[in-house]
């Protein structure tokens, strides 16, 4: 059998728009709904109510946030809900001069992981910092959640607008 190399055919948007090539379009309706589950469901309901909620592990005696129905360390089912403060301390942070959709910005966004008061050491959530001089942010800094008005909350992590220094 002789070897045959096919000519490559490069298609541009223009070829489709001008009808130079025959094609079908296919637009499957890829709608989805992702079930938040029991723990995150309750957590999101808490956020809507302006309350941070964790779960307690009876074996490790730890309080986990975001809450989960089993402990990832000992695999025991967690046993109760724990209402937490909306204050905490910065575990780690970053200064971003590019947004998620690759737009350059002058004033940096400051994402941070915040260890929540009432949860076990190292247990925190990721959020944005604001009302702060980027140069003054440091690990260990005490911060508090700034909530959106109750009417604007939808049961999402963005129901907290940002964290600001205490």
């Amino acid at each position, binding site marked *: *059998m*002789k070897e*045959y190399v*096919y000519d490559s*055919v490069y*298609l541009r948007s223009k070829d*489709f728009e001008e009808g130079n*090539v*025959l*094609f*079908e*379009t*296919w*637009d*499957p309706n*890829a*709608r*989805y*709904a*992702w*079930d*938040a589950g*029991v723990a*995150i*469901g*309750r957590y*999101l*309901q808490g956020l809507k109510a302006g309350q941070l909620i964790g779960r307690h592990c009876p074996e490790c005696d730890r309080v986990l946030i975001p809450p989960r*129905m089993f402990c990832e360390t000992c695999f025991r*089912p967690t046993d109760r809900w724990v209402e937490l403060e909306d204050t905490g301390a910065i575990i780690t942070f970053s200064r971003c001069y590019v947004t998620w959709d690759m737009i350059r910005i002058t004033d940096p966004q400051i994402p941070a992981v915040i260890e929540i008061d009432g949860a076990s050491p190292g247990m925190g959530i990721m959020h944005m910092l604001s009302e702060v001089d980027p140069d003054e942010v440091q690990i260990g800094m005490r911060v508090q959640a700034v909530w959106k008005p109750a009417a604007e909350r939808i*049961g999402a992590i963005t129901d907290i607008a940002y964290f600001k220094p205490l």
Partner: protein
Amino acid sequence: MSLLHRIEHPRDALAWEGDMPTLGRYTAGIAGEKFFRAIQEHGQFLGTVCPICEIVYVPPRLYCEQCFEHLDEWIEISPIGWVHTFTLVHLDLDGNPLPEPLPLAFIQLDGADGGLVHFLDEIDPEQIFVGMPVEAVFKDPAERKGSILDIAYFRPV
């Protein structure tokens, strides 16, 4: 909410809803393009021939599925063939009843080792039988778009 909590209404289940944009364009390919252009411009069927396996591919392929030989021998295929198999479709794509059953057939084209799935018309559905000779009826040239629907239907010869 606990593990024993029962959701009584779907709205109680917290779910994130989203929509993935997945618009796709599917081209006919090199052989398919030539095949549909021949239907559009000349109202004729083309096929490719594998000289080794003696297979006549309709719709045409660019390579032989049996021996992988490159196929560059193109021949015109007769618009006449016979009903290889058929069915009567009673529901549309959404599952709604059609006003009349729609005969759909696989038509083996004369002189080819393949054929086309298409509609049958100008016949009483009761009269259709396997082996029935049929021919392609093309749409008016001005209405053709380079699509399989440039063939309006097949009808008994």
